[in-house]
């Protein structure tokens, strides 16, 4: 039990400079190589190809989001990482070990370096918070005294030192998830898997839990894999993202890159969850195809990139001499990049109506803002 003598919270590992999903072998904490997973037909249910052609790596020390709709294969993916399931083809390498080739005792030893937190917390109702956190340590055969000091340390780390003797039924959802996080970190894992860990929590608690995960990543250097169907989780926490759809990785890479230039429709739809794609009803109902005298042309433009939209309206007004109206706007930040859309009203005036629209579109095109002319309002 030498490894357990030191009670330091963990050795901070400096995150590597380049955190690309094309990470080479030494940088990868988790690597999927040629993975497919097929569930055979059983009792009249047809077989399912849950995952196909999965090849990607999760960089050491990163926070990587795996996002997909239900049925996209997220659960299968996470269960392959902690060895609860075997791939049909290919291998999953976790921290240099081919976890898909391990079985029995070897697998159980390897699983101690992979922590996991769950949507419904999965705490034992018969154990106090402290005893729940102690469970993986008991399983790993730690000495009683070592367990006690490690548990106190973990309770403090997740900010619930005062809940030592509370049973799960006496804790709030956020506190239960903190116990879950402490339990997952107990054996000092190198990877923390989060399986929809905030999906059962209210937005405020979700933010607190995500902040805690960010701290843990920063201070302990633990690689975090966030399995989620919620764009907001990826947006707040992840630096890297893998988009899953129907068992395939459809896009992967830096969060800001993926969501400022979404290529796949499913990525686009996740982006839409954050920034919306519909016009306000009061505006949409007023849009007409023919230019009314003295009205406005409606132009929607996409904003992508750091600080992209900041001065746009002012510059339009100044450089084109137009009294541009801001009809609707929605801009959010993903991975430090602005992502959103603006809906502008361009005054048609008496004579120069079409000219103003053309000049505006040309200006936007020149500055590389994708734009569309939606119609007119009176």
């Amino acid at each position: 039990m030498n490894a357990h003598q030191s009670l330091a919270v963990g050795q901070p590992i400096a995150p590597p400079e380049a955190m690309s999903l094309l990470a080479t072998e030494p940088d990868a904490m988790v690597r999927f190589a040629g993975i497919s997973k097929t569930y055979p037909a059983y009792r009249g249910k047809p077989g399912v190809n849950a995952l196909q052609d999965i090849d990607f790596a999760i960089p050491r020390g990163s926070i990587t989001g795996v996002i997909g709709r239900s049925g996209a294969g997220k659960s299968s993916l996470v269960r392959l990482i902690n060895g609860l399931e075997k791939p049909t083809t290919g291998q999953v390498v976790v921290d240099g070990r081919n976890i898909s080739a391990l079985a029995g005792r070897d697998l159980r030893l390897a699983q101690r370096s992979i922590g996991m937190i769950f949507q419904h917390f999965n705490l034992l109702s018969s154990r106090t918070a402290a005893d729940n956190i102690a469970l993986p340590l008991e399983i790993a055969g730690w000495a009683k005294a070592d367990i006690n000091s490690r548990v106190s340390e973990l309770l403090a780390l997740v900010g619930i030192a005062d809940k030592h003797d509370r049973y799960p039924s006496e804790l709030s959802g956020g506190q239960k998830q903190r116990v879950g996080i402490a339990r997952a970190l107990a054996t000092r894992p190198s990877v923390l898997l989060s399986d929809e860990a905030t999906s059962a929590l209210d937005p405020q608690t979700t933010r607190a839990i995500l902040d805690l995960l960010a701290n843990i990543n920063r201070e302990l250097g633990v690689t975090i894999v966030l399995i989620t169907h919620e764009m907001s989780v990826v947006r707040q926490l992840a630096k890297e993202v893998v988009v899953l759809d129907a068992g395939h990785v459809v896009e992967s890479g830096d969060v800001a890159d993926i969501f400022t230039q979404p290529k796949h429709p499913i990525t686009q739809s996740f982006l839409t969850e954050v920034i919306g794609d519909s016009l306000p009803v009061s505006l949409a109902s007023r849009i007409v195809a023919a230019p009314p005298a003295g009205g406005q042309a409606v132009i929607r433009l996409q904003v992508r990139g750091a600080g992209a939209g900041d001065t746009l309206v002012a510059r339009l007004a100044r450089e084109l001499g137009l009294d541009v109206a801001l009809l609707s706007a929605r801009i959010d930040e993903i991975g430090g990049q602005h992502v959103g859309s603006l809906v502008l009203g361009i005054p048609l005036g008496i004579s120069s109506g079409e000219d103003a629209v053309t000049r505006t579109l040309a200006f936007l095109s020149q500055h590389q803002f994708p734009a569309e002319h939606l119609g007119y309002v009176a």
Partner: protein
Amino acid sequence: MSPELINLIIQATFESLYMVGIAALLGTAFGLPLGVFLATSRKGELFAAPIVNRVLGIVVNATRSTPFIILVVAIIPFTRLVAGTSIGSSAAIVPLTIASTPFIARLVEAAIREVDGGLIETASSFGASPLQIVFKVLIPEALPGLLLALTLAVVSLLGYSAMVGAVGGGGLGDLGIRYGYQRFMPEMMLAVVVVLIALVQLVQSAGDYLARRVNRRLRHH
């Protein structure tokens, strides 16, 4: 009621408690592992052995469908083999144990199946072995249900023990039949019934109390 009759009741009560107590202990010793196995051995489960599971299930059902009084008589040779005799309280423990084991096993199976499957997966993900999962997760989490199951088993055994008079097992039921019914002493019958009711009440209350004490699921402060 004469002191002799009261002595008879006291003696019969101890006989009943002896038979039921030992049979409940043995029935739990056999029924608990059997029930845990039944609950964890279907396809894809912790100790997956679907064929053994099916066979044991059939044996359990067959034993449970045999009326107790027939079981007592049918296994007399086996009883003699195990207890050295087929008559008396000690011998009666054999059929009582054989009847209570599958009963307890089914109750244990139901209690274990009530445990959230997510907890098994959670413990597996920490690298817990199947036996660790049984002793550290399944049994502690099912404890309230297990205690209620055991309570139910003891109450049923008290009822069964009334029938072992047929093989000279003694006990309260036997006393009630021989004195209360055959010798037509209604006050004896009444006394036996009152003692049995009191015993059942006592066992049930104790079981309920213990189950409540260990149940942390719905307790709020």
